[in-house]
């Protein structure tokens, strides 16, 4: 692990030994390309396998392509389990979950950062303590609860129980504490109520941490597996991770369609990251995880 064998390329760093810098950079970038390719190899292999007929999945060894492109795998994947329905379910769960989490987090953060009330700090610490609580500890009582409420096998059971973690509220509160109060004071003097202030002044300013909370909870809901595995017991009601696992149980070695389904499952997350990468970087560095 070298920190600085390579010459910094910042323009601020002034003049340096150019030739060494350039050669170093070429070597460094070439090495990074190799590492990066190795890193995404599983996805490449996923895609490659999704286009092989099942017989050829193992017989082709390390070849990327089979004798022909088996596009039919995608068709099989789509029809074997109600995949369309499952994708819609996944989107409903991830979007509703992310929005619910973000909304609740913002309201709590606002209260903790801008109001004074008794036990505020103790309550916040108690709340924050659950930041490190593994949700897995709660699955049994939550399952019993959902069962009593008749919510087993419903999307509500997938969305609601996990929208109240401390992470979002913590992140937004940290961010709020760094904002100057002048605008809010001015608005209050003009007679704006607290909700008005939240809506017109704070909301536009906290877009970045909101985006971070939204994206991370979307990702969590999108990939969540243990809880759906427990609370959903009908193929058609599940989300993608559950669908894939059932798929593998059902079609032990139908690797072609299985990888086709996996590829379809990976795409949305990929799009989310690529589209929102700016917000992610910004949010992580501003939302208190690195920036001050």
């Amino acid at each position: 692990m070298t920190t600085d064998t390579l010459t910094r390329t910042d323009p601020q760093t002034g003049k340096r030994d150019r030739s060494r810098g350039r050669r170093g950079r070429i070597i460094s970038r070439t090495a990074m390309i190799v590492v990066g390719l190795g890193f995404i190899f599983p996805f490449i292999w996923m895609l490659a396998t999704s286009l092989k007929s099942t017989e050829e999945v193992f017989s082709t060894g390390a070849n990327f392509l089979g004798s022909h492109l088996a596009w039919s795998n995608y068709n099989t994947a789509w029809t074997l389990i109600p995949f369309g329905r499952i994708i819609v379910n996944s989107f409903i769960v991830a979007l509703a979950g992310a929005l619910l989490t973000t909304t609740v987090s913002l309201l709590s953060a606002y209260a903790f950062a801008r109001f004074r009330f008794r036990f505020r700090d103790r309550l916040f610490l108690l709340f924050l303590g659950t930041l490190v609580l593994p949700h897995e500890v709660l699955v049994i009582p939550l399952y019993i609860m959902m069962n009593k409420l008749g919510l087993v096998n419903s999307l509500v059971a997938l969305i609601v129980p996990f929208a109240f973690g401390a992470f979002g509220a913590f992140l937004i509160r940290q961010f709020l504490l760094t904002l100057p109060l002048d605008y809010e004071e001015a608005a209050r003097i003009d007679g704006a109520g607290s909700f008005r202030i939240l809506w017109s002044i704070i909301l536009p300013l906290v877009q970045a941490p909101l985006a971070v909370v939204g994206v991370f909870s979307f990702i969590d809901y999108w990939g969540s597996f243990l809880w759906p595995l427990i609370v959903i017991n009908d193929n058609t009601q599940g989300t993608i991770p559950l669908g894939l696992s059932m798929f593998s149980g059902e079609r032990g070695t139908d690797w072609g369609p299985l990888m086709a389904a996996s590829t379809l499952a990976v795409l949305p997350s990929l799009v989310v990251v690529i589209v929102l990468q700016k917000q992610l970087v910004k949010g992580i560095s501003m939302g208190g995880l690195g920036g001050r």
Partner: protein
Amino acid sequence: MSRNLPAGRTVSAIAFSAVAALTLAGCGSSGAAASGPGASSAASAMYTWISNENDRSQWQSFIDAAKKTDPGFNLTLEGPSFPDYWTKVKTREASPGAPCIITTQGARAQELKDLLAPLDDLAKKNNIDPSKYNQAMIQGMTVDGKLRAIPYDAAPFVLYYNKDLFQAAGLKYPTENYTRAQFISDAKALTKNGVYGLSLPPQFVNGPAPALAFADGHYPVKDGNLDITNPDFVKDVQFTFDLVNKEHVAQAPQASDVVDVSQQQFMSGQAAMTFGGPWMYQTFTTKTKGTVGVAVIPSTSGNPISMIQGSGFGIAASCQDKEAAFANIMKITTADVIGAVGAGHGNVPTLQAAMKAWAGTKPAADVSTIETLLKNGKPLQTTKNWNQVETLFTQYSVEGFRGTKSAETILNSVANSAK
């Protein structure tokens, strides 16, 4: 940071309204649609293993056959894959709006007894005569003296073999007195050029071990208690493990393999023999590279006791309208329906009246093999915590097949953990 206040607000407004809309959508879909059938339709809903093509078309053929006599008949199906079924059926039936009809194997009736309503009174009311059914199956479906399910097939485990591969190796087909010695020598002769003599899964009951033990009269359960550590049974399991690590006539399975892996090895011609239930008959005979024959399970003496582990339909204890559910079960367990399913899929009927339909166009040798097995069969009975036994065995067996642990060590571990 967004300097553009109106835009930020619009985004947020959209977000808030989307929350509302989606939450409503979520709640809406969690109603009747999501939580499965209501009380009225629960009676015509069945929870079962519905996974691969074979399962799907099998259940469909039950429905189609029942429609012939009652065009209005219908049954909605839901459920996971077979290995997941034994975990999921409990959580599903513990939840509201659960299907009334539950599929169970005779072997697992013990485990599901709390879910399954006793059917004796309903059977009397509907003039069902249990003596008409395969007795081993009725025995298997009876827990604590109460009948828990109406059996539809009596499935003696069989040995499937690939006739073409046998011929190519210059071997005689297995007889109805197939011995273990002959089986080993055949398997060795068949293992060459990347083809194995046998394919097997890592699971317990779906694997060869219990069937081979049964054939010699050794059973995993005695008087309702787990007895997998008795020396005879241990020896039979070791025999199975040795097929891989000593005789090298089969490939070692991986823990995460489901039973399909070994089935596909057989169907693609990479293995000459495999063990399975008659419910695979149609799939194997139509989809295997080569002609498939059915043989008895090899035994030391050549007179095997067959392991019978068929399935049946029971009614959930929580079912609101047990009468209606039972009426539906009656419709799918008539001799005609069972016969039609047997003809199409190979499931051996539990009703004598359906045997003719089942034999249908099957080769006489196959029919006679299965009839031989039926004559001398015992139901596979298991314990209340069989799911744990299965899970553990699958976890541990990998090391047994690879020869790193002995059957004795493995079975002792399983028995200790599954107390």
